[in-house]
């Protein structure tokens, strides 16, 4: 039986002991060298052995035992290495063959799947009940943050005649509502064709949308639709979703890097995520009811969407980037709008021509 020379630390002191190591049927046998030294005798079963580091050429092999994890055995002999490989092959597994690597991989995979599931199902489902819990002043605070972000330094338009026309339009829309939601409509001096409802009842219309609309009816339709979002508190739901997503991405990456901060930003994500199909349907239904009660055309919405889509196809999608990115043109929606359109502006146009021109020029 071959004896291998080794160095041994018993884990109780930093003193080094010389030992000789032999293999037997069950494990490694350590004996003191010289044999008079007491307390060194060990029997380490093969199953209890652990390698400190993966074996590398020209580097001593270092071992411990699960029964005394503080102890260290160190051997330089390549012959010992070969025999250990033969007797205890489980020590030399690599990669996914090692049980702890498999366990960690499974844990990481499970964490990723759970996170994905939570983002995909949990956050959207929780957002509606949570939105109802949000206090109004909090909503308005978030709204101010989002509004600032959407304005992006652009000024708001407050020309006197245009402002009066705008308030006539909104009054006409909401006059027949039993309990109109609290809201404020503002026009921003930006060229993009877009309109947003924000938490706290702020509605922002970009100048580009007013200019590309062919009639006040079309603007009224957009406004009615956005009021639907306000009524159902969709913007607050979206803010909650974005905060949820932000928190999860923070949790994942942890280091708060610039990219994550950007993505986690309330306003930023509010723009990245578009309303769900269900939300759009709810907003359409509400908007349709509002328009009918105000004796306004529900067809205008469909016409506006159709025309923008046509224009977008021709002008390499620049116009499409706006309103359609947050309001995807759903053929099902357009069909529904067309079908329900029994009254083609029974109560006349939404605004008279002077008011409509004033509204178009609200930004001067």
């Amino acid at each position, binding site marked *: 039986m071959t004896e291998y020379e080794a160095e041994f630390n018993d*884990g109780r002191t930093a003193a080094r002991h010389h030992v000789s190591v032999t293999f037997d049927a069950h494990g490694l046998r350590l004996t003191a060298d010289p044999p008079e030294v007491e307390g060194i005798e060990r029997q380490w079963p093969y199953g209890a052995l652990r390698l400190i*580091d993966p074996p590398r050429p020209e580097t001593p092999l270092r071992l411990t035992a699960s029964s005394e994890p*503080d102890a260290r055995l160190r051997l330089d002999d390549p012959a010992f290495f070969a025999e250990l490989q033969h007797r205890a092959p489980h020590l030399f597994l690599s990669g996914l063959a090692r049980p702890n690597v498999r366990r960690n991989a499974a844990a*990481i995979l499970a964490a990723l799947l759970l996170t994905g599931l939570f983002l995909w199902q949990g956050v959207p489902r929780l957002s509606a009940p949570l939105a109802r819990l949000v206090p109004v002043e909090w909503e308005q605070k978030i709204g101010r943050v989002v509004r600032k972000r959407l304005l992006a330094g652009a000024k708001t338009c407050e020309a006197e005649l245009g402002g009066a026309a705008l308030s006539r339009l909104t009054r006409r829309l909401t006059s027949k509502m039993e309990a109109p939601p609290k809201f404020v409509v503002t026009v921003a001096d930006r060229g993009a064709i877009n309109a947003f409802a924000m938490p706290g009842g702020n509605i922002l219309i970009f100048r580009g949308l007013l200019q590309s609309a062919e009639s006040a009816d079309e603007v009224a339709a957009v406004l009615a639709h956005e009021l639907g979002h306000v009524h159902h508190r969709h913007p607050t739901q979206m803010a909650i979703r974005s905060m949820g997503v932000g928190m999860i991405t923070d949790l994942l990456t*942890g280091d708060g890097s610039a990219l994550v901060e950007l993505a986690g930003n309330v306003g930023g994500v509010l723009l990245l995520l578009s309303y769900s199909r269900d939300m759009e349907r709810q907003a359409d239904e509400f908007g349709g009811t509002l328009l009918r009660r105000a004796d306004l055309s529900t067809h205008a919405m469909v016409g506006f969407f159709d025309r923008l889509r046509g224009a977008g196809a021709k002008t390499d999608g620049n116009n499409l980037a706006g309103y359609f990115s947050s309001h995807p043109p759903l053929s099902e929606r357009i069909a529904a709008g067309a079908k329900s359109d029994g009254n083609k502006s029974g109560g006349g146009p939404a605004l008279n021509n002077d008011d409509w021109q004033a509204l178009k020029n609200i930004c001067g």
Partner: protein
Amino acid sequence: MPQTPSPAQLRLEQRGRAGELLPIVLLNMLLNILTLSIYRFWGKTNVRRYLWRQTHFLDEPLEYTGTGGELFKGFLAVFLLILAPLGVVSNLAGVYLEPDGTELASFTGLFYLFIFFLIGMAIYRARRYRLSRTRWRGIRGAMVGSSAQYALRYVFFWGLTLASLGWAYPWMRVSLFTRIMEETRFGDRAFRVVATLGPLYRLFAICWFGSFALLIAVTAAVVNFSSASVIIEGLADEMTVSPWLGLLVLWPFFLLFWLPWYKAREINHLAAGTSFMAVSFRMDVSVWNLLGLMSLNLLIVVTTLGFGQPFAQLRVFRFFCRRLRMIGDLDMDWVRQSSAMAPSIGEGLADAFDLGAV
């Protein structure tokens, strides 16, 4: 026992090579991307294992016994128990307290004070975790003090440093270093620190007054130069609106300019004041060494978008091992295993505040 006539010199030796570190770093990079960076805890652990086992003392390698799972759990615990509640509290305060009122101002003040406290705590706790996972000949290190007490000291001294326009800084450094080293154990043995303030204050005074000299020189240069150029003249005009305020805002940067000179002296001074059993330490760092190390490391980290951090760490290890000498006879046989409690999860706070230097 054989008697050695002149005291022996011992050294730490770092045998790590960038070529061997590269495959570890590349694998970490790949798995970080695939797992949306959850793997980073395991990746960090792999790098530490390599750096530790390539560090030798008396021909015996150090050993890192921490695991990625411990770091991951530590991070989760801190996120859920500290960071998330803090975020909620600060959001609520932003909503419910008057934006321009004194209430919000005092809340913000207290909030940042608390963050500072947490940073002090994070420094101590990260060190406790790392030492408890560091072994040599099977014996582990430990921190035996209280992280909260250290954090209080940390907050107090930083406040004092700011209030004294920097003058408490050397005192703070000596005090915090002494505290942290004297609570450091290898096995059952403590480190001792006896560091005077005199030599540090002499250099600090030169740096402090030097910063004003530099400030005046640069201001004079700008003012002279501006007469030649219309654009800079415009800028200088704006500056003259409140020149004293402008000077005060710029001044800390000029103090930072001298910092490397002070730091090099501080490292050598603090090391020379430290001893372990019969061994005393010496560091031999010049300002140019230090600047070389820092600037190249910064370049490595920036050009690799942070993925090169382990190479920078290897360079720090090498720098430290090459310049540290231990003088005296060391009889390690009498060092017994540490009985200090070791934390079961790791470094969550330090990870949260991005303090994970190694």
